[in-house]
């Protein structure tokens, strides 16, 4: 066995997976994370233009949200922080739980505050001067009650890995960090119910479950798992990689505890799968993005960890064939199907161009117009292999699939995933990218990419050569969840491109009853666009609920509601 470790670097090189350089999300098990790390980016939709790292540091870094969006004005109803306020919080929580830039501002304190003020894409930057880190629900309750009474605005913050600017302050809101509430409270290996505090890091929860005597799995997995926290996951209703298999948090979360701005503790920490006793209010907090209260504890139903996984990559002649393949996969793989990902030829060409690797299907008459990655997870490797083998044979024989391959070992499985996950990174290397994370009924899903491509071509903006601002319009995503990532890769910033894309893309989605934000939420980035996916009545009802629970509007102001 001594050889395994020395082997790793070379084998890793052999797999030629694109290296990831996303520092904020680095983790102990780099290899295991490679796939998820990159995938986090691939599902990220920072709206107007995502810059390459060098350009980002040159332009967007250090720009205050309030400068970038001058139309957002500070709400002067909110009080400004005074040393008296801070002294009260110090008294409540202790000195170690307060980062105070109010009483004695200094550059050192600004450095301490910086990570709480900026999102990890460094697109948004607020002006907070105070971070509070309560350690118990009671402390959260005392803090919020005091803020409510004194009209101090608050932004609850978990791992701060959101992609739409929902977790950072805009002006001088107090940051309420839940990071010290990081205890796992209980786990029942028979029912699979995990109860944990909101500040537990997702990966820590998953590692805990994996190392249990009967290994379980957290029903949510996403690229930022090394940093993001359970409370934030719930607040944003994070989708992630396991949604196809385990469903959304609205299904897996059994109960939660939250604190309202009044200080009232909403104790709905139910651990039962069935509980039909009136309104199920916990659902209001899932996806509320911290606008109603702060989630402090979570009870979630965790499935057993699958013992066997298989990965196949398919090459298909058209989007229609992808749909048929997906339908067949559901029919033949049913309970073991755990991922069905779509990639178009353009996206794979970009990965090839950037990494210089040979595509796994390059020998089999490729490139194909579409590729699908199929993953199965189950309890019995032989059973799964047999099913997957039969599925592959049938789709090949019936002409649905033109070519494909099956990972023979873990290294190959990771290599195949890297072709899906490397897309975002490859796009980033080539210049700015307009990204849209949308959900559209499956029948029309890829038509958005075609329509967008046609529209950009009509405007004469796309082509080979430097005179065209747009390099490519590509689509990929979680086909299993009808979640498409439309990406427009540009060579440089050009106002005409944005004019052609917006509001065209949003209107197109609205016409087909799609969602303009499939899994990233609205936050600040998509604040303006809520109307494309929710009608006036719905937005009105949301506002009523907001007014009921947070009458002073202190929770996460200036965001989507």
């Amino acid at each position, binding site marked *: 066995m001594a050889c395994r470790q020395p082997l790793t670097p070379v084998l890793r090189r052999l797999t030629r997976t694109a290296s990831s350089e996303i520092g904020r999300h680095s983790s102990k098990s780099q290899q295991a994370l490679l796939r998820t790390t990159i995938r986090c980016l691939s599902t990220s939709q920072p709206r107007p233009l995502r810059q390459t790292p060098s350009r980002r540091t040159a332009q967007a870094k250090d720009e205050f949200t309030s400068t970038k969006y001058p139309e957002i004005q500070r709400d002067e109803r909110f009080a400004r922080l005074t040393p008296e306020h801070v002294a009260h919080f110090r008294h409540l929580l202790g000195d170690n739980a307060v980062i105070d830039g109010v009483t004695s501002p200094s550059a050192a304190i600004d450095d301490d505050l910086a990570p709480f003020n900026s999102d990890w894409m460094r697109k948004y930057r607020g002006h907070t001067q105070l971070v509070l880190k309560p350690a118990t629900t009671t402390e959260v309750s005392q803090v919020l009650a005091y803020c409510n009474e004194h009209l101090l605005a608050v932004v609850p913050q978990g791992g701060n890995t959101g992609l739409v600017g929902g977790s950072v302050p805009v002006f001088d809101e107090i940051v309420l960090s839940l990071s010290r509430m990081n205890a796992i409270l209980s786990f029942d290996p028979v029912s699979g119910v995990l109860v944990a505090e909101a500040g537990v890091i997702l990966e820590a929860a998953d590692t805990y479950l994996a190392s249990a005597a009967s290994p379980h799995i957290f029903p949510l997995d996403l690229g930022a798992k090394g940093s993001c926290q359970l409370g934030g996951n719930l607040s944003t209703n994070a989708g992630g990689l396991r949604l196809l298999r385990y469903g959304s948090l609205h299904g897996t979360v059994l109960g939660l505890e939250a604190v309202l701005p009044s200080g009232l503790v909403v104790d709905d920490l139910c651990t039962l799968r069935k509980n039909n006793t009136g309104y199920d209010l916990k659902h209001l907090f899932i996806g509320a993005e911290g606008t109603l209260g702060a989630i402090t504890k979570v009870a979630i139903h965790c499935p057993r960890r699958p013992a066997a996984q298989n990965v196949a990559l398919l090459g298909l002649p058209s989007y229609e064939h992808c749909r048929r393949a997906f339908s067949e996969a559901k029919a033949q793989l049913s309970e073991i199907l755990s991922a069905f990902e779509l990639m178009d030829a353009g996206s794979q060409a970009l990965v090839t161009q950037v990494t210089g690797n040979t595509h796994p299907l390059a020998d089999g008459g490729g490139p194909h117009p579409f590729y699908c990655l199929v993953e199965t997870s189950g309890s019995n*490797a032989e059973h799964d292999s047999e099913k997957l083998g039969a599925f592959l044979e049938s789709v090949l024989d019936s002409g649905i699939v033109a070519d494909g391959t099956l990972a023979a070992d873990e290294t190959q499985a990771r290599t195949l995933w890297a072709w899906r996950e490397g897309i975002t990174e490859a796009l980033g290397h080539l210049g700015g990218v307009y990204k849209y994370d949308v959900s559209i009924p499956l029948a029309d899903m890829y038509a958005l990419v075609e329509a967008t491509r046609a529209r950009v071509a009509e405007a004469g903006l796309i082509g080979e050569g430097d005179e065209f601002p747009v390099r490519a319009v590509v689509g990929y995503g979680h086909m299993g969840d009808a979640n498409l990532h439309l990406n427009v890769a540009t060579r440089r910033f050009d106002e005409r491109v944005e004019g052609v894309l917006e509001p065209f893309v949003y209107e197109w989605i609205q016409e087909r009853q799609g969602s303009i934000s499939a899994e990233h939420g609205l936050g600040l980035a998509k604040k303006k666009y809520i109307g494309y996916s929710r009608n006036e009545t719905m937005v009105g009802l949301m506002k009523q609920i907001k007014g009921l629970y947070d009458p002073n509007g202190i929770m996460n102001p200036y965001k989507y509601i």
Partner: protein
Amino acid sequence: MSALRILVPIKRVIDYAVKVRVNKAQTGVETAGVKHSINPFDDLSVEEATLIREEKLGRRAPGGVEEICAFSAGPPKAQEILRTALARGADRAIHVELKEGEDLEPLSVAKLLKAVVEQQKSNLVILGKQSIDDDANQTGQMLAGLLGWPQATQACKIEFGEADAVSVTQEIDGGTQTVRAKLPMVITTDLRLNEPRFATLPKIMKAKKMPLEKKTLADYGVSGEKRLKVLKVIEPPPRQGGGKVENVDGLISKLKELGAI
């Protein structure tokens, strides 16, 4: 120049990406329900044999390749890696079936391979320099010794010349060394030799239907007798995790507590 009859011996091992665990009895590692794959070095052997046939990248053998035969001695599930080898380019596969849990020491494997080489009239054996389960790194060398053939170990480049000459660049500490010998010979592979390909679906399907030659140790006149007995297997001591302190004062008192200051 003789046409090549290549023998590619391969072994089924625990997948290199899997974290191995010692079993409760401390007699070996836990294998039940653990993902197994082809030994990564053997994967390179299969790929190299195929590349020699495809005459890519200057690996052309003047006499051409007459046959590539994959061989494995292992439990019934070793068939899976033989089928993978077939899908990747082997023409035939021979499986010597062992009982689950039964394994052979390098010398037994070398004797077995010698018998296979003689039966198959192979003139080139390409095998992994070691298998990642026992890390013995002995089989290739012993086989060459038993056959009386030249051997080139740790190959990162194989080139064919005139008159059965084969030049092999070997990985050595801090650099490479190039040796030349004449067929027949034994070559063991190292990581830089090539990058194994993905077998395409049609080939995987075809390989599933190809026959496997089933043999036993007795067919080759070899006994699986063991000279070594494993007494105990233990894991390395777990790494001590770090702790967190609340502030500078906490750090100082912790350091004092540990006697560091």
